[in-house]
């Protein structure tokens, strides 16, 4: 017994020494990175997500990271879960381990802001967010999701036979409201052009898992189909969106996917029949935009202290124009969409954005105008 304890104690000592050693090692790398800051140390990129595998947002970013790894960058993706109380520590750990470019979505903004002040030599990219007082070592990326949503909203209005379309979100927040604003704008412009009176219903999944509760989403859509006769559904709800596709499949209505080409994703899965309702998807190319951003940083462009807005003209948002889309959307409607797309790119047509509204009440009023 005594022997065993001695061995255990010895082991414990060994491990604690190893631990110290590692810490020392980590401590050494940081100042090195700091010294090299003057002549740009090689980028070590850390990408933070809560979970990969959402088939949209986080995965799209990961595709960009794959590309960067392929280009020879030292990159690691950290999956840090849903417990936000641990976010700051985990990002801090990555900085201590020598990562000098931290990439994360708006969920990590507040923690990164704190860390940016502590570590002036480390750079930060916050995407899918817009905010004021951005520090010197931080760059923000905002997507013009309103522009892409405008086009699918325009299409939805043209496709609807009942004059009622829907947009269902996971939870209300400024970025999501920007999707909704663009969609509503698209429907309104279609109405103005063709003298129709297509209505838009908007609802949020809410609850404990707004982005992962397909059962509630399915129920929302079935309810809108029955009570309001909605026949085109746009999902902006991450994992909950699967419930929307199922509801559309059951009721024979159209679905619009989001973030990535969800028709292809579903078609390649084990249940390809569910894909046959996804008429198109509003694309938000997070991965491409991150790659472009890293290249800009390498080229020495000044991206810091400001928000870069990426839209249709940067190919950061768009819609899927595949064979299924071509086969099911009438030619005139497709032409009109392409025309609107070109107009927005050329700056001839400006899409309303949530960030244009002076107050929440103004946004509500805007929604009410098509309800």
């Amino acid at each position, binding site marked *: 017994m005594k022997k065993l304890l001695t061995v255990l104690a010895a082991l414990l000592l060994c491990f604690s020494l190893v631990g110290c050693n590692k810490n020392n090692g980590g401590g050494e790398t940081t100042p090195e990175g700091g010294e090299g800051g003057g002549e740009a140390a090689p980028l070590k990129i850390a990408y933070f997500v809560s979970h990969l595998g959402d088939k949209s947002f986080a995965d799209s970013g990961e595709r960009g990271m794959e590309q960067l790894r392929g280009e020879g960058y030292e990159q690691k993706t950290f999956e840090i879960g849903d417990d936000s109380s641990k976010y700051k520590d985990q990002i801090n750990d990555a900085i201590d381990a020598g990562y000098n470019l931290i990439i994360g979505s708006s969920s990590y903004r507040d923690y990164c802001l704190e860390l940016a002040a502590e570590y002036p030599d480390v750079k930060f990219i916050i995407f899918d967010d817009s905010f004021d007082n951005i520090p010197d070592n931080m760059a923000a990326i905002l997507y013009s999701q309103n522009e892409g949503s405008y086009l699918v909203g325009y299409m939805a209005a043209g496709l609807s036979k009942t004059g009622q379309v829907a947009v269902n979100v996971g939870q209300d927040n400024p970025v999501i409201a920007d999707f909704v604003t663009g969609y509503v704008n698209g429907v309104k412009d279609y109405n103005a052009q063709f003298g129709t009176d297509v209505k838009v219903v908007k609802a949020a999944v809410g609850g404990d898992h707004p982005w992962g509760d*397909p059962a509630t989403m399915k129920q929302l859509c079935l309810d809108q189909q029955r009570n309001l006769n909605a026949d085109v559904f746009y999902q902006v709800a991450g994992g909950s969106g699967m419930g929307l596709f199922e509801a559309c499949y059951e009721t024979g209505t159209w679905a619009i996917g989001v973030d990535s080409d969800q028709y292809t994703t579903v078609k390649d899965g084990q249940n390809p029949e569910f894909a046959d309702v996804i008429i198109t998807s509003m694309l938000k190319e997070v991965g491409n935009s991150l790659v472009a951003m890293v290249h800009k940083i390498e080229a020495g462009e000044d991206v810091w202290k400001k928000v870069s807005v990426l839209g249709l003209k940067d190919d950061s948002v768009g819609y899927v124009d595949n064979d299924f889309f071509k086969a099911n959307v009438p030619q005139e409607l497709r032409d009109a969409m392409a025309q609107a797309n070109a107009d927005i790119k050329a700056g001839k047509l400006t899409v309303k954005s949530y960030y244009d509204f002076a107050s929440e009440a103004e946004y509500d009023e805007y929604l009410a105008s098509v309800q």
Partner: protein
Amino acid sequence: MTIDIAAFLFDTIKMATPLIFAALAALINRHAGMFNMGIEGMILCAALGAVTFAHYGGSMITGLLGGIAVGILTGLFIGFSHLTGKTDLYLTTIAFNLMATGGTVFVMYLMTGDKSTTGAAFRSYLVPNIDIPLIKDIPFLGKVLSGHSLLTYLAFVSIFLVWFLLYKTRIGLRIRSVGENPMAAESVGISVTKVGYIAFLLCGLFSGLAGTFLSMSWVSFFMKGMTSGRGYIGLSAQNMANGSPLGSALVSLLFGATTSLATTMKSQTKFPTEFLDMIPYLATILAIILTNIYKINKKRRIEKGKAAE
């Protein structure tokens, strides 16, 4: 607000189904004197088990049986730690729920390489919906009562089966006597451990059905955390009804109705989503308070009557 009443009632029944199963699972354990909070996790495991067995077995039947089997296994696992391992039931079930949250994602990742849903990697199978021959032709009632999932009808049959089991059979009597006073039961030769295992087995059976309903009827795939607290609601439903099977079903239906109403209101009213999410829970708490007030008044009346005698 436009609302199709028949569809509203149909949804009420549909949304109550997993809650009824969960409540039945919880109340059997409760009658055996064990407050099983692990039902949430058990349902989650069963939901994953159902789609897994359906995919690999290639049919709806293997999925249904697999879901039930996983439910029973998890029930026996908790039973084993509590009855044979003598662990504290509350701590075990809390740990079990946390384990199920992460464990289901881990197992799903091993099988599919996907961390959020089995929707892409597993073929979907659905428990069939049943049209009841005569009832479906009755104008209003047909729309409400016909066309539900096989499991929904099974849930309503189960209410009476559980009532019969608990109050009309020998094993039911034993379960209740163990719950009332384990020492007394032991003294007349009833094995508390054995009865406890039977209670956990039945609890697992109904949790399994609840999970199967979620992943093979409501939607056709598993998604992490898809129970969203439905196990806990079932647990409190039976608690409100004092362990009565019929009462628990009524509370589940009340919860189903308020959830269904909140869903419609999300689309058609200006109330914030967060407020509407609160309604089912608020209604449940109010109902608990009202039933308790009613019970206390009744008790007072009886006591007054006794004093007058």
